[in-house]
């Protein structure tokens, strides 16, 4: 093990020098290095398809996006306009109260920087359900109904809400309602209310890239809807691992100050 670490450290140094000479152009939070050799061979060619012709989104992705401040993901021309009560709430929030720091779910569209996998059921043919399996921030999942059902009338508020999906061409569109107001959009504490409704549009723009354009509708917290874009990156050959956040969370008692980056 030690010998392996030595060799790797030496290689790492070489990489470090090279990287310093040629600064990365990858966007903030792009999920890490763009050097394909370091993250496994990235396949090329057409996006794979399932038996029913829909794009195959299976595989392990690393979530990325402006996890520090959601406004960093705004599409061109978009703006995030907080209503007064939401602004006051955001400004009152303390970093130690961030649900993510407390090992609670991220909700939507917040992204944790951990791998996740999309699984459909049944595995072949037309999907009735999609599951997003999250390694972190907590070992959790989202369930998306693909069987044409509507949102029920008697929804109780939950962290991930009630999601129904359909295909528009090669784009998977997921509409979610029924959220609680407990999760934050980011480290700076952008809030929302139970009026939140999200529409996510997932497109596998390349074999190695899953683009997610999410429009956030929440007339309880924002003066108008806004749209953010996150891009997930394929991690070929990776498998999900365990991540039980509550196991030894000593962080919270040492976190100080208002919510922020």
């Amino acid at each position, binding site marked *: *093990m*030690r010998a*392996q*670490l*030595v060799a*790797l*450290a030496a*290689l*790492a140094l070489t*990489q*470090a020098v090279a*990287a310093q000479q040629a*600064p*990365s*152009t*990858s966007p*903030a*939070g*792009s999920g*890490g*290095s*763009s*050097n394909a050799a*370091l*993250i496994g061979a990235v396949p090329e060619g057409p996006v794979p398809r399932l038996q029913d012709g829909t794009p195959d989104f299976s595989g392990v992705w690393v979530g*990325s996006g402006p996890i*520090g*401040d959601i406004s960093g993901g705004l599409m061109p021309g978009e703006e995030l306009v907080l209503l007064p009560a939401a602004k006051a709430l955001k400004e009152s929030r303390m*970093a130690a109260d*961030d649900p*993510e*720091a407390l*090992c609670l779910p991220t909700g939507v569209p917040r992204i*944790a*920087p*951990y*791998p996740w996998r999309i699984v459909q059921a049944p595995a072949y043919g037309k999907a009735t359900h999609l599951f997003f399996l999250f*390694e*972190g*921030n907590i070992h959790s999942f989202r369930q998306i109904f693909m069987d044409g059902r509507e949102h029920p009338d008697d929804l109780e508020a939950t962290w991930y809400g009630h999601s129904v999906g359909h295909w528009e061409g090669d784009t998977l569109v997921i509409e979610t309602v029924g959220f609680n107001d407990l999760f934050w959009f980011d*480290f700076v504490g952008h809030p929302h209310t139970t009026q939140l409704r999200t529409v996510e549009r997932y497109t596998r723009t390349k074999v190695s890239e899953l683009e997610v354009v999410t429009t956030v509708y929440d007339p309880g917290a924002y003066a108008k809807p806004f749209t953010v874009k996150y891009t997930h990156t394929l991690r070929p050959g*990776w498998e999900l*691992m365990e*991540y*039980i*956040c*509550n*196991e*030894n969370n*000593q*962080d*919270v*008692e*040492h*976190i*100080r*100050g208002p*919510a*922020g*980056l």
Partner: protein
Amino acid sequence: MRFVWSLAAALAATLSAGSAAAHHSFAAQYDANQPVTLKGVVTKVEWTNPHARFYIDVKDADGKVVNWNLEIASPNYLKRAGWSSTSLKQGDEVTVEGSMARSGANMANAATVTFADGTRVFARSAADNR
């Protein structure tokens, strides 16, 4: 080779001014403007979530031994970067470069760990490394 990835990713995150942290805001818990170098002997390793931790006994200027609590990346991140749960062992002599906790506790986030034989490895998640 996976270990190389972790450094490259760390650099990419650094160079692109990524402000992402893992499950908490790095800056809310640690002060990047308060770097610390600690030399000591490993007393305990916790291969746990949300962060792996290890503890070292450090002798201060007066010869008094102080136990420090050092946060590193999560086990899943570390494993993918080439670490294992036995990369650090009780009794190892190490030098740690990191950032002090804001709380004033004898706690730091370790960016690198240097072993007695001079091997220096990264210990912080790419997202926290800035």
